[in-house]
């Protein structure tokens, strides 16, 4: 169509004014240059250096605070670093904690990601159903909202009765913690799909289950991802409590042992490993999120 080219240009540049005398027009043209973007160094700094400034500052503050107060109860960062090395590879203290980090770490990861996957597998379909079907919503929602504010730690005794002493109780607690944010965000995502999109899809011949797959699911995906990120954070958050249930291995168990033995360096080492692992997994979720939701600038985090 001949007019379309003209129109798409009209979107790019505001309609030109009537031509001015030549000299003026020329200066106007030479002024029309691309503003310089940030340089390579500046981009490198803002991408890799700026984000680590605050953690470094906190590390420094921690170190200075320990030195100035002369406390024996909190180890300095250097001692924690040594402990982390010994925890992972041994050769420094050679005690019960040496070289055990790998085992604890793998055990905790298996529990956290296993419970998280279970929670996602249960909560996403459930959220889709609750969001789509008003009857199901009326049946399930009050119970859900009643259970949600109950702290997961309050479930600890019951979970030990249900699942006995051991990893299953820990998995149950993590599952419970991750379940609620996922189910609630999924429900919200489904409920807030614009009616207009259903109308458009129906008008184009889309019906029934196909509507669910082609409209509801993609439209709710941003909210589902929000739920997954929240749930994942909570899963790591709860692993220490979960592993209080008397499991021998796991980062939470190691932290509890460290507490009993007044080994604050073990406690802090466990905290560092949990924080770092959670951070890396969150980055992976964000990368997946950005890949799947590249259509939505609001959800590119």
């Amino acid at each position: 169509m001949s007019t379309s080219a003209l129109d798409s240009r009209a979107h790019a540049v505001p309609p030109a004014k009537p031509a001015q005398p030549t000299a003026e027009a020329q200066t106007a043209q030479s002024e029309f240059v691309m503003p310089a973007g940030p340089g390579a160094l500046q981009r490198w700094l803002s991408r890799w250096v700026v984000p680590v400034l605050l953690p470094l500052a906190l590390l420094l503050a921690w170190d200075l605070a320990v030195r100035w107060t002369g406390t024996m109860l909190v180890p300095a960062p250097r001692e924690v670093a040594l402990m982390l090395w010994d925890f992972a590879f041994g050769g420094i203290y050679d005690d019960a904690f040496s070289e055990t980090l790998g085992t604890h770490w793998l055990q905790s990861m298996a529990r956290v990601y296993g419970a998280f996957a279970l929670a996602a597998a249960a909560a996403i379909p459930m959220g889709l159903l609750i969001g789509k079907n008003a009857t199901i919503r009326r049946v399930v929602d009050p119970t859900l909202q009643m259970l949600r504010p109950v702290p997961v730690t309050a479930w600890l005794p019951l979970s030990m009765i249900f699942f006995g002493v051991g990893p299953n109780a820990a998995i149950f607690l993590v599952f419970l913690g991750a379940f609620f944010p996922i189910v609630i965000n999924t429900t919200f995502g489904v409920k807030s799909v614009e009616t207009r999109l259903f109308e458009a899809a129906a008008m184009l011949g889309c019906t029934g289950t196909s509507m669910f797959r082609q409209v509801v699911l993609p439209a709710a995906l941003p909210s589902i991802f929000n739920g997954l990120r929240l749930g994942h954070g909570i899963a790591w958050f709860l692993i220490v409590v979960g592993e209080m249930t008397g499991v021998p291995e796991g980062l939470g168990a190691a932290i509890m042992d460290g507490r009993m033995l007044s080994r604050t360096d073990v406690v802090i080492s466990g905290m560092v490993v949990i924080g770092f692992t959670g951070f890396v997994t969150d980055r992976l979720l964000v990368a997946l999120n950005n890949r799947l939701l590249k259509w939505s600038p609001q959800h590119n985090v």
Partner: protein
Amino acid sequence: MSDPIATRTPAPIIDIAGVSKVFNLNGRPIHALKDVDLKIRKGEFICLIGASGCGKSTLLRIMGGFEPVSTGSARMYHAPIQAPGPERGMVFQDYGLFPWLTVRENIAFGPKQRGLPAARLREISDRFVNMVGLGKFADHFPNQLSGGMKQRVSIARALANDCEVLLMDEPFGALDALTREVLQQELLDIWAKTKLTVVFVTHAVEEAVLLADRVVVMTAGPGRVERDYRIPLDRPRCITDPEFNLVRRELTEMLSSHVSLPKAA
């Protein structure tokens, strides 16, 4: 003046007979439409015009199958309209594009529902992407497009699904004047090239006079058809012609005589 419609088939494609529509607003009945009769023949370009609240959008949504009638009947080729369907393509003012699909995928959405193979979908989407001049933007997402471009995608999406009737609900109402003019012209080109029947809701008199074969003037409280007015102008029409101005004035007078509200300042 020659009448281009006379050469087209006279069978009504859409038949609205004695249609009333009552909405339930918190237990209070709202009469949106009362005893509306309207026959639309194949290939006609109809504009529904009237002040807000006259039920013109409701009437269009009934034709689209989005609203059931309270009494009376809405038929397409003698079959009652009960649900939305691909033979009646709808173009919404707010576009209704799927934000997670690219321009090409949005356009191919309808054909995809019919289970066409990927190669055929590609062929169809290519054709309609180019038809509305968005070749360079085929792989963009809707939120990367301007309003005018989104509305082109929305039109192409309805056309790509082989709709026979194009129902348009103030499609250019949210666009700037320049873009609106271009799109009006493109719509007329498409209408001339295809055998499409268009029902176009607007409240702009000039737009109605420029586009329509027949302008259906509606009034509010309850919504009904006040006049069914044939535009006595040859195509292509030019908005600066004196005849065009006469028709526009006539239609404006027809409309304003029914607006009981005091004039806005």
